[in-house]
């Protein structure tokens, strides 16, 4: 295998592994804010107890996010040096802003969130929780701005040997190392055509990840008849956020897709397996792309794609046959991963509506009712769904961007470090593989153990009726 494929595997592996954790900390951070706000309002020790339990889970997740996140910042330079030189003028300011505004905010206040329960008052502790959640959201902002700029570059121009290149200039192999993108307008970079749509879609995906973790654990306790009050209440927090997030995923996903249609037609064509250019483009429910015969098989709504991206069945959609083969992304994975994400998105909407209906009918707490029981049984594994959807969505976005690393300017194959050899990447890839496997197993073990252990019994408090305390302990 050559350096390019190895470096791509390493980046994909390390970023995908890292991305198991930040969505959980972003979503769970928001849940913590909700729980603590509720505690401050009602002073019901139940909410305090919930906040403390979920804070411990948060701490574990956050620790892994920090440990695996630093790798990515190094990898731009270690494996993608030519790309780093090329985009540094633009990408770097976003990354530096991420460090200053987001990472310091999260990690500084995390100390208070985790260890400050007895050191600061409830108001200041709540403030710290809000700042951690805000920092986690900020950290998504800048990295998505940078990634979106790679998808839809704006506010910048190409420079060769320090001189602006003519419009539409295609980089030649001898230009590499002497070419860079130069910023014209910071705000045009930040608000490039895809950044806000993609930011919204990513953040609500993160909310889903946090929400369904809480739903899953709550459902598990209810089925096991443990920590009933805690479980019921956690489930409600999770469902409320899960319903909002899954519905918003639909809306933000829709507007992201319109953006892809406008700015990255080859990605859209691959996502839908569309070969012929023309109006009345179909929308596949699922399917199989036959790349040899250049056809896509599967049930489809006629005209659905045209209708969705333009509200008009006569909207012409570019097909893959009109895109030169060397500018097409890998079609099958883009198509399948995109459809997987959409399918999961709709199941999450269904699941959260079902749960909210049970809540509304006051049936959520009673696992003896068959409908509740089935819901709870489905809710336990639902924690995996947003994770799979988040990963599938990012793989769609990044595979669909190929062959470009910076859309229209620099190819992925051109962004590599020239001095790094294949055997070095093999060595680091094996290292990451072993270490991350170990970390993942330990993470699962400790998370499971924490959930098995459950929340601490509600502390003695005069606000609690005696009988209720007994029920808690049981």
């Amino acid at each position, binding site marked *: 295998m050559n350096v390019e494929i190895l470096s791509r595997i390493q980046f994909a592996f390390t970023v995908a592994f890292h991305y198991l954790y930040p969505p959980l900390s972003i979503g769970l951070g928001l849940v913590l804010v909700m729980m603590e706000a509720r505690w401050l309002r009602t002073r019901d020790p139940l909410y305090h107890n919930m906040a403390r339990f979920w804070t411990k889970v948060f701490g574990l997740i956050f620790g892994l996010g920090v440990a695996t996140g630093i790798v990515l910042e*190094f990898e731009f330079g270690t494996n993608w040096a030519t790309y*780093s030189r090329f985009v540094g*003028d633009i990408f770097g300011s976003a990354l*530096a802003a991420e460090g200053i505004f987001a990472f310091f905010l999260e990690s500084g206040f995390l100390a208070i969130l985790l260890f400050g329960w007895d050191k600061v008052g409830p108001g200041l502790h709540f403030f710290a929780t809000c700042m951690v959640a805000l920092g986690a959201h900020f950290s998504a902002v800048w990295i998505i701005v940078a990634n979106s700029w790679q998808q839809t570059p704006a506010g910048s121009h190409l420079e060769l040997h320090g001189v602006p290149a003519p419009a539409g200039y295609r980089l030649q192999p001898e230009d590499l190392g002497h070419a860079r993108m130069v910023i014209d307008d910071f705000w045009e970079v930040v608000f490039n055509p895809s950044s806000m749509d993609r930011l919204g879609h990513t953040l609500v995906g993160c909310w889903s990840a946090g929400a369904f973790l809480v739903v899953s654990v709550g459902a598990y306790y209810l089925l096991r008849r443990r920590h009933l009050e805690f479980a019921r209440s956690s489930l409600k927090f999770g469902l409320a956020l899960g319903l909002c997030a899954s519905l918003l995923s639909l809306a933000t996903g829709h507007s992201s897709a319109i953006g892809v249609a406008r700015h990255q037609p080859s990605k859209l064509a691959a996502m839908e397996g569309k070969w012929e250019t023309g109006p009345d483009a179909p929308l596949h429910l699922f399917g199989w792309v036959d790349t040899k015969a250049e056809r896509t098989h599967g049930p489809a709504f006629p005209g659905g794609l045209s209708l969705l991206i333009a509200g008009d069945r006569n909207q012409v959609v570019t097909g893959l046959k009109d895109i030169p083969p060397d500018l097409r992304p890998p079609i099958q994975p883009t198509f399948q991963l995109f459809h997987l994400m959409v399918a999961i998105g709709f199941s999450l909407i269904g699941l959260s509506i079902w749960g909210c209906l049970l809540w509304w009918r006051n049936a959520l707490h009673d696992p003896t009712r068959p409908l509740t029981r089935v819901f709870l049984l489905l809710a336990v594994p639902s924690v995996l769904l947003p994770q799979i959807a988040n990963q599938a969505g990012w793989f769609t976005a990044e595979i669909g961007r190929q062959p470009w690393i910076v859309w229209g300017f620099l190819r992925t194959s051109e962004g590599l470090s020239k*001095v790094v050899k294949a055997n070095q990447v093999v060595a680091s890839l094996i290292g990451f593989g072993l270490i991350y496997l170990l970390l993942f197993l330990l993470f699962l073990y*400790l998370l499971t153990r924490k959930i098995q252990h459950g929340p601490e019994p509600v502390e003695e408090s005069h606000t609690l009726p005696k009988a209720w305390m007994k029920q808690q302990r049981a």
Partner: protein
Amino acid sequence: MDYALLWFVIVGVLFAGYAVLDGFDLGVGALLPWIKDDDERRVLYNAIGPVWDGNEVWLVTGGGALFAAFPPVYATVFSGFYLAFMLLLFALIFRAVAIEFRSKEPWPWWRRWWDRGFFAGSTTASFLIGVAMGNIAWGIPIDESGEFAGTFLGLLQPYALLMGVTTVSLFMMHGAIYLHMKTEGALQARIRRWINPLIIAFIVCYAVVTLATLLYIPHITDVLRAQPVLFVFAILLVLAIANIPREVHHGRDGRAFLSSCATMLLLMALFGLGMFPHMVYSLPNPQYSLTAYNASSTRKTLHTMTIIAAIGVPIVLAYTASVYYIFRGKVKVTKDSY
């Protein structure tokens, strides 16, 4: 305004901040094997527990600032030091998860293995940071297109290794002084006995490094010769180090720690002044060196980043100081602790 100079300073300040803050975390890790008792080891972990990941952010932000302000430097150094930086990453990962996982189970074998990971990760990271700085000071082979032209083994040259050892000894000294401030009773008394030997070990290492620098690195000695004012820094450095045992002797452990921080800042300042304007010195072809002027981003980007930093840095400093203030005083191991 000379933005290239400004950002050379800011990147330097961020890495100096990293050295001062994460330096004591890494030093604590390197000192762990000398404490045998499990409860006392937990005190060590919890002395850095609330602050270590905020401290590591200084490295992340320093790296981000280097990427933003001097992309060619970031690209050349990170790709050139590929294997060394991968090892650094592995070391930092082990350090981080060891803190997180170690006290989650009571089993002796579990804790023993994570203690080993914490020690190995902290020591390796300190050593590799020193080796990287040693190579940057000594100079590395750069070709005409600005790419690293050396080998991994070439990076393990004597001066860089010496710098690695010096960094480990510096962080151990700094970590011991930090622990002295955060502990009490018998544990503190024991740590107190380590401080003087660690200071002496560091001074010996540093003297050898300085001698080697004066003898073998003409581009740094030329700067020193041209600017005699730098001797003021060197004198301040000696005073700061000499002040540490004095403060420890008088039981002013907070001031001893500040003195140690001042030592590290002065060391980084001397390093930066000796290097400027070079960021990566090219040996044997100095004309290919990457400097703050030939390797910077555009004026516009540096201007934008200056605004971001002017807004963000005071806020960061304010709440970092608040967090240190809230967690001031001696370590208490509670149920929320590591």
